[in-house]
Structure formats: C-alpha cells, structure tokens
C-alpha cells in the first residue's frame, strides 16, 4: 500500500507548476488520494447530495416542517432586527407612575403599549422583542458549545475506534468512559453547579447549558462514525491507500453529520428552556433591567395571580420558539430516516 510519511500533502488541486516542486513519492500519494476521493465523491457526492436534496423535498411537503420553519423564521427576523422593531427602549420606565404592583394595578394592552406595561412601567412589547435577541444568543451559543466539544470528543473516539486499530480502540474506550462520567451527572444539576459556582451571568448560563449537551453530541457522532466505518466506501478508500486522517475527515465525518445536525436543531429548543430554568433559579444575567425571556418569566412569577399576562408573554415566547425548533428538528429527522424513505 502506497502510504507516505509526509505530514501535510498539498490539498489544492495540482497545477503543472506545483507538480514539479513536489517530490515524486508525495505526488504519487496525492494522486492516489485524489483518485480515492473522486471515486468516493462519486458515490458519497451524488449519494450525499441526493440524501439532503431528497430530505429537503420531503420536508417541503411536511406540514410539521413548514410550521417549524415559519416559527423559526419569524423568531429569527424578530431577533435579528429587534432594535428596528421595538417601539420603545426596553429599559425606559417612562410609564412608571401608572403601575403599582403593591396595589395590583397593572396596565394591559393599549394603543401606545401593544402588550401593556411590566411591573416597573416598561413597555412589554419592546422588552419581548429585544428579549428575543438575547434568547436566540443563549440558544445558539449554548448549542455551539455543546456541538463543538461534543463533536471533538465524539469525532476523536469514533475515528480512533474505526481506523486506529488496537490503540485506537483504547483511546475510544478512555474517551467513552469520560463521556459516561458526564452522562451520569444529571444535566440540570450539572448546569446549576457550574452556574452557581462560577457566578451568575449570561455567559455562565450559555456555558453551563452547553456543557450539559456535550456527552449527547459526542455519543451521537461516535455512533454514526462507527456505523459509517463499516461501509464499503471506507473499505475502498483504505484499499486505495488513502491516509487514515483523510478518510476520517473527508469521507466518514461528512457522512456522519446527519444525526448531529438533527440534534443541534433539537438542542436549540432545550437550550432555550434550560437557560430559562437557570434564570429562574437566579443564575442568569444579574442585570435584570436587560430583558431575556427566562429572566422576564421568573420576575413575573411574583405577579402570576394578579397580572398573569406578564408571565404568559415570555412563557409563550419560550414555548413557541422551542416548539418551532423541535418541529423543524423532528421533521428533519424524519426526512433523513432511511426507514421512512420510500
């Protein structure tokens, strides 16, 4: 098998000039790599694009996916353009003189304040709109934290297990024990401990919620990579002498991303809910004047019996957004499931 000790072969397609500078044995290895990739690509490429294109077409026909996509799209538009949509400053207590929580006097929806005022006389609509941006930020960053570290651990374990031989399986074993350890810690308790010990802030919430998701992502990616490792195209690439690192990164990994991407969509929903839970426990952003749906919800619970709408708006925001991401994720999972494909 024409393997090569060269550490970093040129990845760009070879031009005539580059060909002359590269020593012969490297060129040969490179050509083998390219050949394997072309063959792999024809299979994985047409197959892979086909899977995603087919999934997209199936999703276009699914009412679940459309509902989810619409909710997510509306949420994204509100979150991204929130300063333009908000009618007032979310922190301005301009109507403070009209609200008396002690006497149960609240102001409901009216022409100038579309959703009424909160307990400090701030415009509820503007706070909801600006809060959407914070909520999106928490969800996305927490999911990214979980995704990145989880994919790193899971990818390492999966690649080692598939291609690393006996030593690789040992590495896989050690990494999986660490994952098991993290899985044995209850998610929310783990997040609470992290958040409580590092100190309350929005960053803490994002990291805490993200860390709790790491073992799930890791297990998913490792499982997918191991099942891909038994496929013919991996065997073909190995037979053609493609370097192991390249097989893992350009062949197995892209084909294993399906479940991980589905999980990311679902995690966006869980992250938003978990972040709200941490805010409720008082571990969120200590600056309560800056709106975030979780913080707003936990603040409003004091007035749940006298002014339920103060809690219902942020709660509905969280529920609907989480529902949107969940619907989208579930539809994606169904669309990608080979068992359901006809």
């Amino acid at each position, binding site marked *: 098998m024409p393997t090569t000790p060269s550490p970093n072969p040129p990845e760009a397609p070879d031009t005539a000039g580059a060909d002359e500078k590269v020593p012969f044995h490297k060129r040969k290895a490179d050509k083998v790599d390219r050949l394997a990739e072309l063959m792999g690509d024809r299979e994985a490429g047409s197959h892979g694009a086909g899977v995603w294109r087919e999934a997209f077409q199936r999703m276009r026909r699914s009412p679940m996916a459309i509902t989810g996509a619409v909710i997510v799209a509306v949420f994204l538009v509100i979150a991204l353009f929130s300063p333009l949509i908000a009618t007032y400053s979310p922190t301005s207590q301009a109507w403070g003189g009209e609200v008396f929580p002690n006497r149960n006097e609240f102001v409901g929806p009216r022409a100038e304040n579309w959703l009424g005022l909160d307990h400090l006389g701030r415009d509820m609509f503007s706070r909801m709109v600006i809060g959407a941006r914070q909520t999106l930020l928490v969800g996305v960053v927490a999911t990214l934290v979980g995704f990145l570290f989880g994919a790193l651990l899971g990818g390492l374990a999966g690649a080692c297990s598939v291609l690393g031989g006996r030593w690789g399986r040992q590495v896989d074993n050690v990494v999986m*024990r660490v994952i098991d*350890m993290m899985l044995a*810690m209850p*998610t929310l308790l783990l997040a609470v*401990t992290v958040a409580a010990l590092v100190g309350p802030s929005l960053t803490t919430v994002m990291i805490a919620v993200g860390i709790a998701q790491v073992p799930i992502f890791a297990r998913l990616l490792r499982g997918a990579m191991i099942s891909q490792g038994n496929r013919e195209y991996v065997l073909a690439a190995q037979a053609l002498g493609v370097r192991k690192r390249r097989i893992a990164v350009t062949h197995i990994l892209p084909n294993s991303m399906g479940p991980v991407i589905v999980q990311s969509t679902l995690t966006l*929903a869980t992250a938003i809910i978990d972040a709200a839970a941490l805010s*409720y426990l008082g571990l969120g952003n200590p600056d309560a004047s800056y709106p975030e749906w979780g913080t707003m919800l936990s603040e409003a619970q004091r007035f*749940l019996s006298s002014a339920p709408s103060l809690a219902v708006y942020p709660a509905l925001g969280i529920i609907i957004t*989480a*529902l949107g991401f969940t619907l989208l994720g579930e539809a994606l999972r169904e669309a990608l499931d080979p068992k359901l494909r006809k």
Partner: protein
Amino acid sequence: MLRFIVRRLLQLIPTLGGLSILLFVWLQRLPGGPEYALLPDDATAEQRAALRRSLGLDEPLAVQYLTFLRNILQGDLGTSLQTSRPVLDEFFLRFPATFELAVTAMIFAVAVGLPLGYLAARKRGTVLDFAAVGGSLLGICTPVFFLAFILKVVFAENLGVLPSAFRLSPGLSRTDITGFVVLDGLMTREWDVVMDALAHLVLPGLALASIPLAVITRMTRASVLEVMGEDYVRTANAKGLHRTTVRTRHVLRNALLPVVTAVGLLAGSLFAGAVLTESVFAFPGIGSFVYGATQTRDYPVLTGFILLIATMYVFINLLVDISYSLLDPRVRAQ
C-alpha cells in the same frame, strides 16, 4: 449473565473514580471557597485561613483527595459544612422525599403515556393521534417551573383543592420508621398521614411528570408503529390469530422493549432530584438541597451527593440492561 453484571460493576470503579477526581479538582479551583460563604463579610484574612486549615483545605490537593478516598472506603463521605452532619445522613434524610416524588411522577407518566402512545399509533392520522403528538411536543417545550407555577396558582391558590408546599401538612403527627412518609403511614395504618402525603405529591408529581409523559407517549407511538409494520405481525394476522393475541403477544411485547429502556433512564434522571419542581413546591428533596449547597460552597455535600447520584444512575442503567436481556431473547443469546 453473572459475568455481564460483574463486568458492568467493575466498569463502575473507573467511572466513579474519575468522576470523584474531576469533582474534587474542579470544585477546589473555583473562586470563593467555604471560608467566604461560612464567615461574615468582615472576617479577617487570619480567620479565613484558620477556617481553611481546620477544614483541611490548606493541604495539597493530592493529600486531600487521598484522605477523602480513605474515608469513602470506610463509608464516610465527610461532614456537611453547613449543617455539621454527616453527608450520608443528609442524603438519606432527603432521598425518601425525592424517591416518592419521582415514583409518583413515573406512575403518572407511564399510566397515561403508554396507553396514549399505543392508541395514537393504532389510530394513526386521527384527531387523537394529532392531539397526542401535539400535546407531547408541547409538554417537551414547556418550561417545567412555569408549568409547576401554573399548577400551584390554579389548584392550590385559586381553587384551594390541593396543598402547594412540603411533604405533609404542618402539625400532623406521624410515626417515622423508614423516612418514606407514604410507606410509614401504610405500615402504621395512619390513614390520615397517607392521604395527606399523597395529596402533597399530586401537584409536584404532575409537574415533574410532564417531560417523561411526553417522551413515553412519543416513544410508545413510534415503537408500536414500527412493530405493526413488521412481517411477523402480518404473518400472525394472515394465519388468523385473534386480533387481541396479535396486539398483545406480537405488537405490544416487542414494541415495549425500547420503552422499558426509556422508562428506566427517565426514572434514573428523576431520582437525581428535580431542582426546579422541588424549589417551586418547597419540597425537601435532594435537588433543592444540592442547590442550597452550591450557594454556600458546601464542598463535601456537593461531592458526596453528586457521587451518590451518579452511582445511583449507573446502577439504574445496569438494572435497565438486565431487564432488557430478560425481556428480549435476542439480547440474552449474545
């Protein structure tokens, strides 16, 4: 089978060992130790140092860890800094509350989720199916503490039909034998205690059941649908077996396998204590105690409780695997 169990138990040792080292190193590295939480703000640096020394926190980390390990092997998980009582005692004081709550929630979830999921699959595409799927999605997406608050406001504060806090009404006398209120009441035939304790379990149990209920409904539905499409179900129908026989012996028995796993894992996570539900309903369980311990930097409690919870979780996993092999002959054969 025995070899399998022994091997799994042996695997527990590195997992828990690693977890204990991780917890130990991580907790001690964090800013603001117990000397800040336990002493008043105006305490001098000498006072803080003296407290650290008396707690053994000035020793090298490795020495502290070895001491900790030696104590664990003797069944001593340390003493709570806050209550000055052994961590193990604190755990067993609170575990019964959490256990009763978790069991209540699981009973709600299984009793409603299993039939609902099965019916939704049988009547696929009907209003019932739509409602079950939609309802379970909604259940997953609703923050537990919000649901708990709604239940509390509606049923306890507005309607006043159910109690909203603690395990028992204050002033109720009872005989304590095991710490499990309902069990004690049954054993001593103090029926008023039993009824009172059960009434206190309804609202937190319902709130805690929301997510397991949604998960079980969805899993049962998906699993039954899959099994109903199998060849052996068609064969059984074709050879003229009675409908009920096919449904119970062929469909349900096979469809419930993955659900059993899910129920086990969900129960495992509930025993860890429901921080949110317990704090809304002032329920004196594990979750609220650990949350309190994070506020006061009670290291022994945090380390001890998390280790105990992790051990419990791994044991429940083992039980799930064993029950799985008992239910599924294919797994047993391997």
